């Protein structure tokens, strides 16, 4: 029962926190563009509005894929520890989260291709290519962390960092790794230089092109939950998690920083993006992992 209660709490927290932040993010982008920007609750209104509209179906796969994306992402979400809220203690394995997160993406890909729109197919192709690009440097860095901590449990990794104070965070122990992690995080979130899959001006929102009304609302919610998973993972792996308040503050800083970078840059083409990921972050990740494996833990001179 307590597991159920905690899981519900986590989903509600993710819903309210991430939607609020998405509104604040729009406001921050607007301030950088010297505009006023929409109010912070705009994303709640958008979401409820899409649910109040009618929507059409393009067949069973189209409907089922949307549900699979939302359900898969919520299932992933309850494995991510947020502060003290650890739903499955000892089970919150990094590999579980990475595998489950793919269920959400694949559900969306399946559904988008099921709509039969050519733009959707191009968008899905780009999304999967981009996934292939950022996953490899990211996984390699995280392998370094897992090797150093001898555990793949996110909660255990977060706790191991807290015992050594602020310099014990993996951010300071693995400075190259955190750069790789952040670049990969921006790719996962689909933020500006890496938003090739949903380029509205080129391919009309890509995978989302055929969605309207309630389907679109569910996919927007899925996107917010996926953002919570990805940023939460980054905070736990590199910034040491912490109490719930500390977790939310770190989450806020990471997310707003990504937004600020995204609001001043232009979009990569998909081929440039893959080449970039396989050059810079992959090289950094290789160096970082080599340091971790051959010299013990990260930059251990500081400790």
């Amino acid at each position, binding site marked *: 029962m307590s597991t159920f209660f905690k899981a519900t709490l986590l989903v509600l927290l993710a819903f309210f926190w991430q939607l609020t932040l998405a509104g604040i993010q*729009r406001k921050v982008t*607007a301030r950088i*563009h*010297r*505009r*006023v*920007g*929409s*109010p912070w609750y*705009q994303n709640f*209104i*958008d979401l*409820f*509005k899409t649910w*109040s*509209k*009618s*929507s*059409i179906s393009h067949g069973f796969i189209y409907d089922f894929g949307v549900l699979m994306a939302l359900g898969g992402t919520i299932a992933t979400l309850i494995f991510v520890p947020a502060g003290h809220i650890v739903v499955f203690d000892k089970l919150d394995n990094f590999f579980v989260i990475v595998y489950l997160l793919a269920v959400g993406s694949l559900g969306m890909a399946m559904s988008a291709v099921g709509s039969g729109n050519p733009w959707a197919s191009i968008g899905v192709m780009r999304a999967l290519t981009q996934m292939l690009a950022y996953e490899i440097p990211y996984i390699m860095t995280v392998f370094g962390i897992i090797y150093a901590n001898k555990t793949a449990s996110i909660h255990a990794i977060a706790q191991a960092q807290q015992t050594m104070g602020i310099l014990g965070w993996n951010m300071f122990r693995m400075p190259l790794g955190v750069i790789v992690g952040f670049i990969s995080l921006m790719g996962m979130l689909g933020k500006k230089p890496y938003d090739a899959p949903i380029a*509205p*001006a080129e391919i*009309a*929102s890509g995978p*989302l*092109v*055929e*969605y*309207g*009304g309630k389907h*679109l609302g569910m996919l927007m919610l899925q996107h917010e939950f996926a953002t919570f998973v990805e940023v939460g993972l980054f905070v736990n792996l590199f910034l040491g998690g912490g109490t719930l308040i500390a977790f939310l503050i770190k989450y806020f800083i990471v997310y707003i920083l990504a937004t600020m970078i995204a609001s001043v840059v232009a979009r990569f083409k998909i081929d440039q993006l893959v080449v970039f990921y396989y050059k810079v972050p992959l090289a950094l990740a290789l160096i970082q992992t080599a340091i971790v494996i051959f010299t013990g833990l990260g930059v251990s001179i500081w400790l």
Partner: protein
Amino acid sequence: MALNENEKINEIDVNELDCRDTLTFWEKFGNIFRSKSIWMLHYCTGCGAMELPPTMTSRFDMERIGMAPMATPRQADVLLITGYLSVKTLRRIIYTYEQMQNPKYVVGFGSCTLNGGVYYDSYAVISRLDYYIPVDLYIAGCMPRPEAVMSGFKKLMDMIKKGEALGWKRYQKYYDWYKKNQIRALGEVYVKDEFHE
């Protein structure tokens, strides 16, 4: 489009507000959200589109009243007809309008959508938009300035909140009439073939 004598449009009063009685509680509730978040399709048809960039960007900042551009008709709530509409474009407008999801609104920019404007008697341009698709709001001017556009959108929001922007219900109710007018303007092409019309 210029009309022959024997092709006069049979005017009926499609603008009566008799669809209004059917507003249920949930529709009124939904209208509050719909009026605060308007996504528009910027498929720009005529010169009025020139006024949209200043309305969207820093100076007039459309996003602060909850409006955002959307790239595809499935996601959009408002279809902007920015000025004159040639007969060729009319076909695309009808496809686009019919693809949008159901509470959907149409805004006509400038005098061209009202009465043909400077293209009044042209063979290639339609002269009154609301014969072909139901228009909720016209913004006057040739072309309307961004201030007029913004105040037009505020008015549209008020109309949505009060449940007066019922063009989409009118289109369902008087579909035969609209269809007849569309076919009359477009000629006898019934086949939905983009390239050989």
